[in-house]
């Protein structure tokens, strides 16, 4: 009754091709955007914005990159965090060392990450599944080593490069709110692009490859081009996300933050959020970002009840346990993740109060 498609008449090609054809959807997304632009800075504290919402947006972007690779094109990748690291270092080096303006250096970081991603995606032309996962794992280790050992890239023993203050054509960005707006603009722009890519010819080719690649090749879809394109676009998104991370969150490019654990967390984000869905990247990223805080609160409450102190070790271990259990749970119960649950809810609302 609430969510219905009846009465929606599309009278032009533009209306037919719209991203959100159903008015309720469109209004909902507009309200959400307005809330993000106007409401969030006023309703949340600086701390929340800096340490929760900005990482949430950045991880959603990176998870979308992984979603292109694994969710749409079916190429399992366990080295996604390394591509974020490449983008981070690329962006910071361009900005700090070569004086490239802020937005082009983010773009440059993304392009460098895309190039590196394509390079490590070459094995995908010969192998798939678990074997590809191992080669992307190799990418994770090799990239980490290269960044820490090649003096020109890193700064020395710890290979951390500090980011100079952010300026866009003279305008200094130093409050969390300004960084939040920068992140929001870039993420929203790239996500709209993502939504269009996945329903374009490229997206359909990826889904064909995921479902049955031999059949896709027989139909005329060039596996070479589209698999490498998946790696390139996925790594581009990861690179931009990594660059944003270094600019707005860490204020430095540090390869230790883009480690194997982050790769697994990104994979968990798309499994829980929904593989093959732009909304899924957002939901998964939000879930994983909020999870440690949630566990923290729950354990603290339990601790108070039981009269015991909750150690950081226990918190970390519980986080691992819950993370692992959630991955297994979602794979068994809802392999298409939270996005699918949302879809099911909308379908239910479409018919409510009638049963069918």
């Amino acid at each position, binding site marked *: 009754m609430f969510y219905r498609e009846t009465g929606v008449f599309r009278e032009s090609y533009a209306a037919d091709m719209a991203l959100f054809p159903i008015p309720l959807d469109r209004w909902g997304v507009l309200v959400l955007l307005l809330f993000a632009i106007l409401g969030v800075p006023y309703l949340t504290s600086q701390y929340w914005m800096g340490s929760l919402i900005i990482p949430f947006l950045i991880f959603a972007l990176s998870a979308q990159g992984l979603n292109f690779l694994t969710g749409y094109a*079916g190429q*399992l990748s366990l080295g996604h965090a390394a591509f974020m690291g490449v983008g981070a270092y690329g962006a910071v080096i361009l900005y700090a060392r070569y004086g490239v303006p802020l937005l082009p250096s983010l773009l440059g970081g993304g392009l460098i990450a895309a190039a590196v991603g394509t390079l490590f995606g070459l*094995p995908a032309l*010969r*192998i798939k*599944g*678990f*074997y590809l*996962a*191992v*080669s992307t*794992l*190799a990418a994770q*280790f*090799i990239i980490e*080593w290269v960044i*820490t*050992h090649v003096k020109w890239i890193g700064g020395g023993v710890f290979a951390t490069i500090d980011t100079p203050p952010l300026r866009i054509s003279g305008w200094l960005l130093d409050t969390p709110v300004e960084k939040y707006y920068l992140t929001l603009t870039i993420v929203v722009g790239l996500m709209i692009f993502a939504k269009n890519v996945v329903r374009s010819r490229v997206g359909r080719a990826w889904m064909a490859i995921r479902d049955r690649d*031999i*059949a896709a090749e*027989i139909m005329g879809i060039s596996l070479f081009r589209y698999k490498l394109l998946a790696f390139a676009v996925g790594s581009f998104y990861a690179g931009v996300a990594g660059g944003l991370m270094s600019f707005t969150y860490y204020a430095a490019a540090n390869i230790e933050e883009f480690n194997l654990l982050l790769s*697994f967390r990104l*994979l*968990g984000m798309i*499994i829980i959020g929904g593989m093959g869905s732009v909304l899924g990247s957002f939901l998964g990223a939000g879930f994983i970002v909020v999870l440690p805080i949630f566990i923290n609160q729950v354990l603290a409450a339990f601790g108070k009840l039981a009269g015991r102190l909750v150690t950081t*070790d*226990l918190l*970390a*271990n*519980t*986080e*691992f*346990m*819950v*993370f*692992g*259990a*959630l*991955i*297994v749970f979602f*794979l*068994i119960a809802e*392999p298409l993740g939270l996005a699918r649950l949302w879809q099911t809810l909308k379908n239910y609302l479409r018919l409510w109060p009638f049963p069918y």
Partner: protein
Amino acid sequence: MSGDLLFAVELGVSGVLVGVMYSLVALGFVLIYKASAVFNFAQGAMTLFAALALAGFIPYLGLVGALVAVCLLMTLLALGIERIILRPLVARPPLSLFMATIGLGFFLEGFSQALWGTQPKGLDIGIPDTPFDVAGIFISRLDLVGAIVAAVLVLGLVWFFQRTTTGLGLRAVSDDHEAALAVGIPLRQAWTVTWAIAGMVAVVAGILWGTRLGVQFSLSLVALKALPVLIIGGLESIPGAIIGGLIVGATERLVGGFIDPHVGGGVKDFSPYLLALVFLIFRPYGLFGREIIERV
């Protein structure tokens, strides 16, 4: 020059012996893959779990009692895994199962450390740390014992898979679950048996690695080292796991001895992965693996 050659031989021998220990961990992977076509990313976490359990039980039950208790525990774990994870995911694509084992790995790591603590523990099984001296080459006693144990284990497992009905049944299950079910092989028992055996292998690997490294979190990272072993040797082959392990161990040691000093260190850690990448491009199924032929 003779000093260099002696050094190389010493590195080679110690590499081979370390490689045997990598093979032990890889063996767990191979077993599970051989019998259920699932790549068990949680093998490292299982090794950590087994080692922590052992270290936790030894003060109360003594060495033999602790071994028995841990073997029972791993069997229970196998039962649990089969019931909770494998059974619901029976007809899903292998990628789903792989990701489920990633989740399982995280769960086991968190669980074992929550239960037994995160401090490194020593594991003492009565092997002194003094090396043997054979014609100027030092061989670690522990490495030698590990090699012997692994050899015995491998022979036993090869016999099991080639000569016993259960072993043949397990191989049939790995080829095609549904066909095996159709022929009447009890899938659930097959899987429980496999994971239990892999659990025992994890116990042995846990003991040897735990004695060498101390029982702590990094034990589960040893599993990451085992992945190149599997690529090189072939995912389905027990002799492949051994040979692959030897190659990886020797490579690691030789690279560490000869190349690392020139490039500032760290290469030896991912040199097995580089070798695996080369293999992936030219011979993806490894030295002894079976080629997967896809039919349209």
